[in-house]
């Protein structure tokens, strides 16, 4: 019997599932999870270009996310610009920032690059927290009601969902194109061994800088979309370390350096986060125990559990599957296929 198989079946099913999700799950709660999932997938896919493919683990990508989030809201606040016009400006600023950051830090490698990115992102966060033009610690707000579609301010989650899905598709398409071209080969060779790559004529610093710029542009777009959806941004939600850490963990969980790894990571992590927030509450809550006369208080929240979740995932990935779930699937799939056919 002729076996029907095409490498496009998986992506087609995935596309159909993503298109139909908000129609099947029509309650605002599930649609919000869908939108959050797409945003996490966009951010992680953007990070994946430099962190996954090139192996340059940035833990300060929130600097681009925050810049992308602040720019449209600042331009709206100052001159009433539509939010959609602020997105490319944010992307340009982020690319410029990536060059400024990349030129000196790509002289460093390994952990030094990661530490440098954390330091820069934290400096920007602290600076924005005291800069009155951008609302200091209070932050900035977008339009309460949209003047038109160009303000990207909608009452329903549905337009955000499909807009984010369109952006994710574009980011994945670009990543797919990068993977297949010389640029993608160079990125993977740099990740494996910079010294060997250079000996083969790979312009290592230039390639890393290009990857960082491309990644920064997409991360900035993700930040702009986040700001448009929430209509608000402050230093912590834009430049906070958790924003960067989430990108790293989502990509690493699914499979850093793979096309669909960030998607898979987001599909697992975002519902998990939603579950912890729902079960344990988003704000501070807790309970007190009297153990043999000693009063012990446990206070926490769903948000605090997110940190525990992230920590646990980091430990599990580092210990058992550094290649992420895509790598695990790549190893197990042939065995499962064989055993299924043998049975």
């Amino acid at each position, binding site marked *: 019997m002729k076996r029907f198989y095409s490498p496009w079946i998986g992506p087609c099913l995935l596309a159909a599932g993503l298109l139909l999700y908000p129609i099947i799950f029509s309650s605002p709660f599930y649609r919000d999870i869908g939108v959050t999932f797409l945003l996490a997938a966009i951010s992680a896919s953007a990070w994946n270009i430099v962190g996954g493919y090139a192996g340059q683990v940035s833990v300060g990508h929130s600097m681009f996310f925050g810049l992308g989030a602040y720019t449209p809201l600042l331009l709206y606040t100052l001159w009433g610009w539509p939010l959609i016009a602020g997105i490319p400006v944010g992307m340009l600023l982020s690319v410029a920032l990536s060059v400024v950051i990349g030129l000196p830090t790509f002289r460093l490698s390994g952990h030094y690059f990661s530490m440098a990115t954390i330091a820069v992102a934290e400096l920007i966060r602290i600076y924005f927290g005291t800069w009155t033009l951008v609302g200091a610690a209070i932050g900035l707000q977008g339009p309460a009601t949209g003047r038109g579609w160009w303000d990207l301010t909608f009452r329903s989650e549905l337009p955000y969902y499909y807009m984010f899905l369109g952006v994710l598709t574009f980011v994945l398409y670009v990543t797919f194109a990068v993977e297949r071209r010389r640029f993608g080969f*160079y990125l993977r*060779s740099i990740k494996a*061994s910079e010294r060997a790559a250079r000996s*083969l*004529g790979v312009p290592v610093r230039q390639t890393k800088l290009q990857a960082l710029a491309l990644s920064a542009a997409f991360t900035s777009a993700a930040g702009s979309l986040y700001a448009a959806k929430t209509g608000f941004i402050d230093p912590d939600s834009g430049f906070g370390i958790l924003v960067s850490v989430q990108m790293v963990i989502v990509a690493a969980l699914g499979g850093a350096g793979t096309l669909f790894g960030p998607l898979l990571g987001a599909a697992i992590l975002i519902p998990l986060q939603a579950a912890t927030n729902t079960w344990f509450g988003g704000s501070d809550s807790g309970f007190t125990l009297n153990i043999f006369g000693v009063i012990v208080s446990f206070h926490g929240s769903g948000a605090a559990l997110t940190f525990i979740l992230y920590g646990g995932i980091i430990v599990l990935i580092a210990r058992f599957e550094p290649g992420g779930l895509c790598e695990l699937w790549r190893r197990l799939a042939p065995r499962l296929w064989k055993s299924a056919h043998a049975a």
Partner: protein
Amino acid sequence: MLLEASKVSKAFGDFWAVAGADLNVGEGEIIGLIGPNGAGKSTFFNCLAGDTLPTGGRIVFDGKDLTRASPEAHARAGIGRTFQVPMTFEDMSVLDNVMVGAFLRHPHRDDAREHARRIVELTGLRPDQPGRSLGTPGRKRLGIARVLATEPRLLLLDEALAGLTPTELQEAIALVRRVHETGVTIVIVEHIMEVIMTLTRRVLVFNQGHVIASGTPETVVRDEAVIEAYLGRGTRSQSRASGNP
């Protein structure tokens, strides 16, 4: 001359790993570099490949001064190298590994793939095999294939044949011969005398950062300074009898 390296030196603090070494390589030659461990061969090699910046001296390749040029610039100029420990791109297939080198002269993917396929065929590897699944001989072959894909005019082989079984060694020697027949000039650092005696017509012997002898393989193995460098003082007469350094 294709390569003229004159008075090349490299110091690490007060220690001179290479102390004024000269090497002239004509187009089409195969030259061997030998010497005891720690003689400075690999450091000299790294200077020639642009991996290490020389402290002094001059390296001219095909009329171009490459003394302070990057490894990328060396590769673009036509100098290719392999590493003692093969640095395989583990997550990539054999063909993809070779394509990284092929992209240097063939920027378009299809051209690079076609060129890489021809090189992989020459080295007898399986194109779709994952890099991480290769054993030592495969990795050594892949190292050679990858650098050949950059279409070098001068190939620097750094112990590319070490760690092979006698059968694998014969296959590897045959491979280097095939590469040489395609017009590539080769400088080979090797400890295995069989490789040096079989492949090269001229040998330079390094010791303590200096070139202490040069000539045909047959003459250098009988050179007293070479025997002393390898075996130490008081062993000359014994070695003379065996004919090996």
